[in-house]
């Protein structure tokens, strides 16, 4: 049960933390590194509030052992901004009112980001957008405003000014 060193990159910055092997990725992100944008919700792989990207792929950080991401690149909601400006999907969420309490938003943004990246340059259907956020539960919005925001970015409405 010795602590071990774990090296990982979060939002482009290298970190080294000393952790028990049972430490979960969400604990490293929030408690060790202070990126509290990532939320802990159900902690049973159900709600998606803890979603982050690992090497570009979305995962639920409440259910990934931190030691398993050794040497990998993690992106949290704090890493979405570009040069101090909100990313297109963040702007679209603001414009479309895609949140109420905001608890699901960081995870939702990460799933949306992965979805948009995967489908870059391709037309996407509403059904595909809804499948893209299937792992994220929102108890407030009813999803429509979230789907509209993702659709707007997919259609190129938020291309770099």
């Amino acid at each position: 049960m010795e602590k071990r060193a774990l090296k990982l990159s979060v939002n482009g910055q290298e970190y080294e933390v000393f952790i028990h092997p049972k430490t979960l990725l969400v604990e490293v992100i929030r408690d060790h590194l202070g990126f509290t944008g990532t939320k802990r919700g159900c902690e049973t792989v159900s709600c998606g509030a803890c979603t982050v990207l690992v090497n570009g792929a979305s995962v639920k950080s409440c259910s990934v052992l931190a030691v398993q991401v050794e040497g990998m690149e993690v992106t949290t909601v704090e890493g979405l901004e570009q040069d101090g400006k909100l990313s297109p999907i963040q702007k679209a969420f603001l414009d479309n009112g895609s949140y109420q309490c905001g608890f699901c938003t960081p995870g939702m943004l990460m799933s949306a980001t992965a979805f948009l990246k995967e489908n870059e340059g391709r037309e996407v259907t509403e059904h595909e957008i809804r499948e893209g956020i299937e792992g994220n539960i929102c108890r407030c919005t009813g999803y429509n405003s979230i789907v509209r925001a993702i659709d707007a970015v997919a259609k190129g409405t938020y291309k770099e000014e």
Partner: protein
Amino acid sequence: MINDFNYLKPGSVKEAFEMYAEHDDCKVICGGQSLLIVMRQGMVAPEYLLDIKGLDELRYIKYDEKDGLRIGATTTHREIEKSPIIQEKYPVLSLMETKLASIQTRNWGTIGGNLAHADPAGDPAPVLIALNANIKVGGKNGERTMPLEDFFKDYFETALEKGELVLEVHVPVPPAKTSVAYQKFNLLDSDMGIVAVAASITLNGDDTCKDARIVLGNAAPIPKRVKNAEELLKGKKFDEKLFEEVGRISYEESEPVADIHASEEHRRHLLSVLTKRMIKKAWEQARAVA
């Protein structure tokens, strides 16, 4: 709370075999998508945890026209879903994956972990058994291969012996004019199925049934073949009445449990309807394949 465990990280499959043989009270973790939940609940609290997630030796999808498909145990669900060769040659496998849990779980969870977990509601097992798949397991004392059908022993119990890992799933090339259909019934796409049915139909040149394999999911402690129904189909022509009868056999032979999601009666009913539909669908698809 997850218990304090000693963490073992092998650098190769060989080393994993040795570590697994050396340590008593040792549990394997791959993606942890199922294991961490039960560890958090305190239901599993091993002294050692053997982490095989990083074993890229077991992370592959290989296809050969004679040998068929081989998928390594640490391959993720998402890699199977997105594999062009699987989409082309075994579309039912890719489609099944698109409905398995959420994208996040598919990105981290693995096929080996799914099969070793042996949840009777698991999606890959019925489809792979309908496809006549084999599973390769092994440990320090060697490897063995068995039909996947024989791998499942009871609720969450498998044929794995102490010190053995799941290594690979092998799906042979299907016979000519064969197609497999699969559907699970659930209320939310990303949930475990309340029940599920996989059906494989092989046709003769004259559109009669040459061979059939029907596998029920979450209908019994392990994936359940309905051999009486399969026999009934052989030699017969496409016939809705016959499919009705086959559905009735599924109804009778299943042994589902009742829980908050569905009563036993409702599950049997769903199984009979899905059996009928999947046979019909596989049959129609089989007509279109070479």
